[in-house]
């Protein structure tokens, strides 16, 4: 069965969704979701270890050999993304039980699980497929599911946030498919490896250039590349807790993966980075995101919104590596896919617990007052994840920052080093607003009783916060995987 792992990776959550709809039972839905999430993690881990030992795995769907059939292709990069996504899923799934029970009406809860499974299937499919159009289909599966997940938020703003996200997300996906169409018209193939080969032979580069622009903007919309990030803060702020945690930790990351895949393995990186101002564009946009979005985060009153803005800034860290285009920079970027996923996942999972106990849809600075006394473990977890967001040593965020700084030094981009330092400094400001509210403000009298979040939710959040520290010290998963992936991308560049 092991050779079918690439198919199982996607099919398991994809089959779980209709089963959940058929069963119409919340309990079964949760059970199926959890089992599938863990199964996906096992698949991803097995795939990653096989890729690490024996190189890329190719799987021909329907036994039609590529480039005619659809190929699932797992290499170091996609294995890393698969692990990152399914790792998050395995924490979110057990968490979902209490969280969904508290936030969604009983007769709709199974739909929430089904959508979550679809979203998971779509994201995993995006990471694993080797076919440009198949990627679009998975992109839309995950996007449609995520629009529904967001729209199920408790407050009415969730509806409008979902609508806006849907509009911009669909434009992004449409742009992507336009880009793929142009590439198909020029080369007559949709398989990534085949595309790369045939693009080398193309004489007239104008449609290829147009395709590059469409794919960049389209994916940029999906992963909230500054200044295409307008949809993100509201979408994350108003979605149900588990949806925010899951999407914040995974959705944007997989879209960045798509861009990396195109930039380094489909298009000719030598031409892309030498003949076009790609490097400058990505450095500038990333730095702008890191600074401007962080500043915006400082001024938010709604805590979920605050961290949503911080996500925009952190996407800047991830795209910085594209602009640096060297081993250290790309390692930093790719490892941040996982590091930031774990960090933001922990924060939103814990905030979900806070929202549940506060009984309100919104978590504002006032809600957090006295959290250190009322929910000491939750507050501690938030602090730990916040430190990782800042990038203090001993946390996952530091690992990223270190590689990015070294990468910037190698590139001779001193101003980028300064920007990374400045951005972390602003991160201190917004994280410390939360810490001060939690520890130095007295709780309002009626809410002063000590009451932690339900055990399942708390455990998931704390476990993820623990991972922030684990990945800060024991880097065999996040750094070695990212290192191999970066080496793979740069090998494609030669």
């Amino acid at each position, binding site marked *: 069965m092991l050779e079918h792992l690439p198919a199982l990776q996607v099919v398991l959550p994809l089959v779980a969704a209709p089963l959940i*709809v058929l069963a*119409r039972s919340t309990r079964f839905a949760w059970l199926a979701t959890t089992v599938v999430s863990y199964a996906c993690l096992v698949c991803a881990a097995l795939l990653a270890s096989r890729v690490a030992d024996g190189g890329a795995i190719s799987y021909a769907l*329907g036994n039609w050999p590529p480039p005619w059939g659809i190929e699932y292709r797992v290499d170091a990069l996609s294995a890393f993304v698969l692990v990152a996504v399914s790792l998050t899923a395995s924490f979110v799934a057990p968490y979902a039980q209490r969280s969904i029970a508290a936030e969604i009406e009983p007769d709709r809860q199974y739909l929430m699980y089904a959508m979550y499974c679809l979203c998971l299937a779509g994201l995993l499919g995006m990471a694993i497929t080797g076919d440009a159009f198949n990627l679009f289909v998975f992109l839309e599966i995950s996007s449609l599911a995520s629009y529904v997940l967001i729209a199920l938020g408790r407050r009415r703003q969730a509806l409008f946030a979902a609508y806006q996200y849907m509009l911009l997300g669909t434009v992004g996906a449409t742009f992507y498919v336009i880009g793929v169409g142009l590439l198909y018209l020029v080369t007559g193939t949709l398989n990534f490896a085949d595309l790369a080969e045939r693009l080398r032979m193309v004489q007239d580069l104008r449609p290829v250039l147009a395709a590059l622009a469409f794919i960049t903007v389209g994916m940029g919309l999906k992963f909230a590349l500054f200044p295409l990030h307008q949809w993100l803060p509201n979408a994350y702020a108003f979605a149900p807790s588990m949806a925010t945690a899951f999407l914040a930790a995974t959705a944007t990351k997989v879209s960045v993966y798509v861009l990396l895949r195109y930039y380094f393995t489909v298009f000719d990186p030598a031409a892309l980075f030498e003949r076009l101002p790609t490097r400058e564009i990505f450095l500038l946009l990333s730095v702008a995101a890191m600074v401007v979005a962080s500043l915006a985060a400082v001024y938010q009153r709604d805590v979920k919104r605050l961290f949503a803005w911080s996500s925009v800034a952190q996407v800047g860290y991830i795209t910085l590596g594209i602009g640096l285009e060297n081993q250290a920079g790309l390692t930093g970027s790719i490892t941040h896919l996982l590091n930031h996923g774990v960090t933001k996942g922990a924060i939103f999972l814990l905030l979900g617990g806070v929202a549940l106990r506060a009984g309100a849809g919104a978590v504002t600075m006032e809600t957090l007052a006295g959290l250190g006394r009322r929910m000491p473990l939750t507050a501690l977890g938030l602090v730990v994840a916040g430190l990782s967001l800042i990038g203090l040593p001993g946390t996952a965020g530091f690992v990223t920052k270190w590689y990015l700084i070294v990468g910037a030094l190698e590139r001779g981009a001193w101003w980028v080093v300064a920007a990374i330092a400045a951005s972390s400094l602003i991160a201190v400001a917004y994280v410390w607003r939360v810490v001060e509210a939690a520890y130095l403000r007295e709780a309002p009298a009626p809410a002063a009783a000590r009451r932690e979040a339900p055990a399942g939710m708390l455990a998931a959040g704390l476990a993820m916060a623990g991972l922030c520290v684990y990945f800060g010290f024991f880097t065999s998963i996040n750094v070695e995987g990212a290192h191999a992936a970066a080496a793979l991308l740069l090998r494609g560049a030669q």
Partner: protein
Amino acid sequence: MKDDIILRVVAKLLLPFMLLFALYVQFHADFGPGGGFQAGVIAAAAVIFYSLIFGLRAGERLAPPWIVEAMLAGGVLVYAGVGVAGLLLGGNYLDYFVLHADPAAGQHRGIFWVEIGVLLTVAGAMLKLYTMFAGRDRNEDGEEEGA
């Protein structure tokens, strides 16, 4: 509209033919344009047409909501099941060659069931969309329906 006798008679007369046409489009797809997508839409159109004339409730008697939802999910399962069957019979996922001793016949068998799945899902989705939107104004007074 169910008070109009002409509509009622025509609807009842047309309905079987529409469903039959759907089946034709479905099964003749090996030799001409057609397939599960088109057939599904035609079949769903028949039911929608019926409920346009006789009212939503009558339509729901014809295709109860739970059946519609089951069709939606079941179709996907049939599709995925074909893929898994390929796996179990020793091929890759969605491998039709192994579904029959003769690979060509295997392809036939595989695509047949896949198209059945598509038919079910598309028809289910169309019906679901229709009832979802048409069912809206019945409970205008604040009560909400699943989206």
